[in-house]
C-alpha cells in the first residue's frame, strides 16, 4: 500500500482571523479570489473604506452649538455610550436580531430542505416564490404589514368577525411586529445559502446513517446538520447583520416604542444633529458585529467539512 504519499498535507493554519475568514470562504466556495477581488477592491476603497475613515475621524470630534462638527479631539463620544440608556437600546437590538435569526433559521431550514428535494421543475417555482417580495419596494411591503397588524387591520377584523376576540389585540408597535417585519424582510437571505448547502448535500449519506442504526433525529444532528453548517453560518450572518442595524422596520413597525440602535444612529445624524456621537455609536455597532461574526465563523469554521 504505497498510497500514503498521495495524501495531501493539511495547509498551515493562517494566523490572523481575517486571513482565516478569507481562507474559510475560499475553501467553501472554490472561487478564484484574485478574480473577484480585482475590481471589487476598487469599489471597496472608494465607496467603503474612505467614507468609513471619515466616520471614524468624526467619532473623535466634537459637536458645535448648532450641530456643526468641531475638530476638537475627544473620547467623550465613546464614554457617553456607556450609559444604561444606550446600552439598553443596544441589548434590545442584539436580542431582536438574534430572535429574528433563530426564527429565520427554524422556518428557512425546512423550506430550503423541501426546495432541494422536490422535482426540478417545482424547484424553480419555489425559488421564484422566495424572490417575489424583492420585486416590491421594501417600504411598501412594510406598510402592508402595518395594514395587516393595525387594531382595525385585516387580522384583528377577521378575528373579531369570527368571534374569537372582542377587543382588538395590539400587535402594531410591539417587539412582535418588529421581529415579524425583520423575519419577513430577511428570510430569503437565510433560505438561499441554506438551499445552496442542502442541494449539494449527498442524500445517500442519510441512507448510510439509517443503515448503521441512526434514527431520524440522529441522522439530522450527526450527519445532515454538520454537513450543511456552511449554509447555516452564512444565512445567519446575512440575517443577523442587517437586522441588528435595522432602522426602517423598527421605525415603522415599532412606532417609537421599540427603539433599536439603527434608530439611535439615525436620530443622532438627522434629528439631534450630533454627528460625532452618531459616528461613535456606528463604530461600536460595527466592532460588535465584526467580533461576533468572527467568533461565529470560528465556531462554524472549526468543523472541517
Amino acid at each position, binding site marked *: 500500500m504505497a498510497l500514503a504519499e498521495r495524501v495531501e498535507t493539511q495547509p498551515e493554519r493562517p494566523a490572523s482571523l481575517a486571513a482565516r475568514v478569507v481562507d474559510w470562504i475560499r475553501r467553501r466556495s472554490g472561487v478564484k479570489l484574485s478574480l473577484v477581488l480585482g475590481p471589487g477592491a476598487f469599489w471597496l476603497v472608494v465607496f467603503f473604506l474612505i467614507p468609513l475613515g471619515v466616520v471614524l475621524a468624526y467619532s473623535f470630534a466634537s459637536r458645535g452649538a448648532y450641530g456643526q462638527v468641531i475638530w476638537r479631539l475627544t473620547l467623550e463620544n465613546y464614554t457617553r455610550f456607556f450609559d444604561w440608556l444606550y446600552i439598553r437600546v443596544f441589548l434590545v437590538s442584539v436580542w431582536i436580531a438574534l430572535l429574528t435569526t433563530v426564527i429565520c433559521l427554524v422556518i428557512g431550514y425546512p423550506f430550503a430542505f423541501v426546495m432541494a428535494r422536490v422535482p426540478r421543475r417545482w424547484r424553480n417555482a419555489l425559488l421564484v416564490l422566495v424572490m417575489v417580495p424583492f420585486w416590491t419596494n421594501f417600504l411598501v411591503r412594510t406598510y402592508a404589514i402595518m395594514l395587516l397588524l393595525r387594531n382595525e387591520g385585516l387580522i384583528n377584523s377577521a378575528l373579531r368577525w369570527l368571534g374569537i376576540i372582542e377587543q382588538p389585540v395590539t400587535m402594531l408597535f410591539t417587539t412582535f411586529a418588529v421581529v415579524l417585519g425583520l423575519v419577513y424582510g430577511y428570510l430569503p437571505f437565510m433560505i438561499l445559502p441554506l438551499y445552496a448547502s442542502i442541494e449539494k448535500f449527498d442524500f445517500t449519506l442519510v441512507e448510510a*446513517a439509517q443503515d448503521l442504526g441512526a434514527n431520524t433525529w440522529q441522522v439530522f444532528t450527526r450527519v445532515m446538520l454538520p454537513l450543511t453548517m456552511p449554509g447555516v453560518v452564512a444565512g445567519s450572518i446575512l440575517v443577523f447583520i442587517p437586522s441588528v442595524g435595522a432602522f426602517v422596520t423598527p421605525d415603522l413597525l415599532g412606532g417609537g416604542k421599540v427603539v433599536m440602535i439603527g434608530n439611535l444612529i439615525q436620530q443622532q445624524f438627522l434629528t439631534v444633529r450630533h454627528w460625532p456621537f452618531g459616528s461613535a455609536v456606528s463604530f461600536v455597532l460595527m466592532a460588535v458585529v465584526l467580533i461576533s461574526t468572527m467568533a461565529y465563523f470560528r465556531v462554524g469554521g472549526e468543523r472541517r467539512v
Partner: protein
Amino acid sequence: MGRTADVELRNVSKVFDNSVVAVDDVSLEIEPGEFFSLLGPSGCGKTTTLRMIAGFEMPTSGEIYIEGRPMGETPPFRRNVNTVFQNYALFPHMTVAENVAFGLRMKRVPRDEIARRVREALQLVRLAGFEDRYPRQLSGGQQQRVALARALINRPRVLLLDEPLGALDLKLRKEMQLELKHLQMTVGITFIYVTHDQEEALTMSDRIAVMNAGRVLQVGTPLEIYERPSSRFVADFIGESNFLEGRVTGLNGQQVTVVIDDRVPVPARAQDGLAVGEQVTVAIRPEKIRLRPPGMERTDGCVRGRVEEVVYIGTDTYYLVRLTERCTVRVRVQNSQNRLDSGEAVGEGAEVLLSWVPETAMVLKA
C-alpha cells in the same frame, strides 16, 4: 430443510410510479454464510432488490424474510443487515475511526468497547494507523475498505454490497476481489453481492442469480451457470457463446442431433422434453470447439467449415468459421505454442473441421 435461510424473497415485485416494473416476481433463498451474487446488466433491478432487503424500499408485493422473520415495513435501522454502498457514502466530516464507530455509537455501546472494536475492524481491513485520516485523504481502495469496516463492525447477519468495486481500476479491482472473498470466509457473514461484471461474479460467488429485466433467470453455482446455462440470455451474458439455430432430427440417450439450416448436423447434450422436429438453438462456447485441418474426418460430430477471419489476442486466437451461408461460429484456441515459431497453422480461407464433446453444447428451446 432444517436450517432457515438467512434471507428469503418470496414472489417479491417492485413497481415504481405505477408503471416501471423494476423487480418482477423474484423468489430467492440465501443460505447462512453464503457468498451470493446478483448478476445482470445495468437496469435489471439488482440495486432495487438489494434496497428492498436493506429496507430502503418496500416491495409492491411479496414478502422478504430475514432469519426467518417477515420484514414487512421494518425500517432499515431495525434490520440485522448492513450495506456497503456503491459510492461508499462515507461521512466526509468524520475521521476514519469516527466513520467506523458510527454504528456502535448509535447503539450506545460503551466507549472502551467501541475503541477496541474499531481497532479490530480496521486491522481486519488492513487500515490500522489510518484512524485520524478523513475520507478525502484516502485512495479509492482505502475508502472502500473503510466502508467495509464500518459495516462489518456491527456484526450484521447479512452484508449487502452494491457494486462495491465498480469505481476502482482494473488491477485494484482484481486484488480487492480476492481480498473480499478472503474476508468473507474469515468473518463467516452472509454476503449478498451485486455486480454487472460476470467475471467478478464467477470468481467470488458460491452461488449466482442471473437477472434480466427484473426477473431471475437462473440460480446456481458458477460452474452450473457457466456450463449449463438454461437460457439464451444466460449463455450470452456469462462468457461467450455461439448460437446455432436448427431442428432436432435425432435423439439417442445422452445426445441429440440438430440440423442447422437443413444441411449441417451437429451434436449436442440431450435434455428432457425434446421432440424430433422441434425448432431449437444450440449454444456452444468458443473454447469448447476443436479446430483441425481437413482430411482427418471421424465418423461422428465433425463439421466442415471455412476460416473467414483470424484474430490474435495474446493468450488465444479467435477463428471465425463459416458453416453455411447464414451461419458462422467463433472458435477460441489457446496459443499453447509460440505462434512465431510454429507459424500460422490455419490461415484465412482454409478449410477446417470443427468438433466438440456433445455434452458441452446446450440445447435451448427457441
